[in-house]
């Protein structure tokens, strides 16, 4: 392909003869653009111009557009180029191009600068908090309506959710909490041994797992696993106007979509916490036995002395509250998804981050509360 010379110029007494050649198509558009700009720049003020296109074999929008650019650059200086040799089949295209480009392009979409974004996000925190409160209200109201009319409750939907967020989460929860129990026991024994206090590892693991870690680990896992799923599901329903469809059919999306999910989480999380705590203790017991030489009967004996029902209750009481927090944040973020895939991603991330943050804050508040009532 002769793309080295898509345009050749012959100049005589300030009269230009511009000859096009070869393929004026998208593949050669970058070279053609350079040639066009060079020509227009080098011969900025001719007296007359003739453009001969008879040797142009092919032309598409790209070629036609650049041809128009060349013509306009001379028209701008008051010279009307004469065009000849244009193949009839490209006539419509060239004429079309001649009519185009009269409008002003709109200003580019603004991207926020860092400080500006920081400002917006700060303001958004307040709006977020208000939206969250609002949504808590809407969820409680919807649950209240369900209580008043139990028959309107979507039992099947809830059982389905329970299966997904509860039953199917069991293996991974068991695995992770087991490993954490092992690590805790190993670290406890390793460090307490220096003071000859190996046996206290049982007290430490018992209290830590039942009061704090069991529920916290499980809540964080569920926020990542089920919270993100809730947000993505509701978000894609929003994108495809399914939520609007529910609304115009006279259903309350909160009642139909949110309440079953929320209740499923509130039921599942305490159960998972229990399973997780037991699995942790099992891991700790095994490591104490194998690594610390504490036999299972000694371990159990010691555990009975170290913990009482209060320790267990503290962990379990927190679970449903954390579940509600995760569920509400996840559903709210899902229902706030806008039209784009990017927005779906952003809200899913936000859902997980906010849920984990709130779970930890909540754990702190509970710690103060239980300390105050001596539990």
């Amino acid at each position, binding site marked *: 392909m002769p793309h080295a010379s898509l345009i050749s110029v012959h100049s005589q007494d300030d009269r230009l003869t511009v000859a096009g050649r070869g393929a004026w198509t998208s593949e050669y558009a970058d070279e053609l653009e350079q040639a066009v700009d060079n020509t227009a720049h080098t011969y900025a003020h001719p007296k007359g111009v003739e453009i001969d296109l008879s040797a142009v074999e092919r032309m598409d929008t790209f070629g036609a557009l650049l041809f128009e650019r060349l013509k306009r650059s001379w028209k701008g200086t008051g010279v009307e180029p004469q065009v000849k040799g244009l193949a009839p089949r490209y006539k419509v295209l060239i004429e079309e191009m001649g009519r185009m*480009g009269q*409008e*002003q392009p709109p200003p580019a979409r603004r991207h926020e600068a860092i400080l500006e974004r920081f400002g917006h996000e700060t303001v958004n925190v307040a709006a977020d908090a208000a939206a969250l409160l609002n949504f808590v209200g809407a969820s409680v109201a919807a649950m209240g309506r369900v209580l008043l009319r139990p028959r309107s409750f979507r039992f099947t939907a809830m059982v389905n959710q329970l299966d997904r967020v509860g039953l199917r989460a069991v293996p991974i929860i068991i695995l992770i909490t087991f490993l954490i129990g092992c690590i805790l026991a190993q670290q406890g024994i390793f460090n307490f041994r220096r003071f000859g206090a190996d046996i206290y590892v049982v007290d430490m693991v018992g209290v830590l797992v039942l009061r704090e870690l069991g529920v916290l680990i499980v809540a964080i896992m569920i926020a990542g696993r089920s919270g993100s799923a809730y947000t993505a599901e509701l978000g894609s329903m929003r994108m495809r106007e399914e939520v609007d469809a529910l609304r115009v059919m006279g259903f309350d999306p909160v009642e139909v979509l949110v309440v079953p999910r929320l209740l499923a989480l509130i039921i599942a999380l305490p159960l998972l916490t229990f399973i997780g705590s037991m699995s942790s203790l099992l891991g700790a017991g095994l490591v104490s036995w194998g690594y610390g030489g504490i036999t299972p009967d000694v371990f159990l004996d010691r555990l009975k002395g170290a913990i009482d029902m209060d320790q267990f209750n503290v962990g379990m009481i927190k679970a449903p509250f954390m579940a509600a927090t995760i569920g509400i944040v996840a559903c709210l973020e899902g229902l706030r998804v806008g039209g784009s895939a990017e927005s779906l991603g952003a809200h899913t991330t936000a859902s997980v981050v906010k849920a984990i943050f709130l779970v930890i804050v909540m754990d702190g508040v509970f710690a103060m509360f239980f300390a105050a009532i001596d539990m």
Partner: protein
Amino acid sequence: MDARTSTTAEATNHREAIISVHDIVVGFGDRVILNHLDLDVYRGEILGFVGTSGGGKSVLTRTILGLVPKQSGTVEVFGQNLDDLSERERSALERRWGVLFQQGALFSSLTVKQNIQFPLRENLHLSQRLLDEIAYTKIEMVGLKYDVAEKLPSELSGGMIKRAALARSLALDPEILFLDEPTSGLDPIGAGEFDELIRTLQQTLGLTVFMVTHDLDSLHTVCDRIAALADGKVIAQGTIEDMMAQQHPWLRAYFHGTRARAVQSGRR
């Protein structure tokens, strides 16, 4: 090969098949959707493809495009058997066709301008200025205002999405354009304008158009030839007059039903 052989008359004389589907069988599970189907699309024509809803029109389109696996048969585009192409040859060929999906399929996180420039950026090395000029040209060609350029797809109406998606499918100046029900979901005036637009673009750019449609108006106004699908086969093809003369019950119902008569009388 010359990409831009012009007018329809000329092309029909040559009868050069630009897409040639032969003996295609496609099914899902044990349901056969396309049953030994044959179809030719000739260079420079606008072929209207009709058939019952759920009859497999989209499936045929997607089979030609290689999005649905076929059980047997061959698809030739530009005289090349799609199964024989290497990865590179195939992507070169894919740049020569444009597709307008039923829902537009614009990338939701990119603006209209970025959507149009996407295939350009991937395939060509162009200056930013030329990229912008091309994007605005395509926007203008499909009859949109420049200010949609900076809008996201979620900020557009249904008709605007169709046009913007058309602009994207035209970005690389394809030789073949596939349209899947381009006018469904548009109001009759919008649909009429869209038909007009397809016709103008076809003439300006020398396109070959494969159009799946339900719109009797489109069939009357823009299609050079019509092919009808029923029971997994092309049961008839030809001009609108040929179709009206057909005796197949579905074709009779389709072209002589109440809606067809309304279109007819409106035309007189």
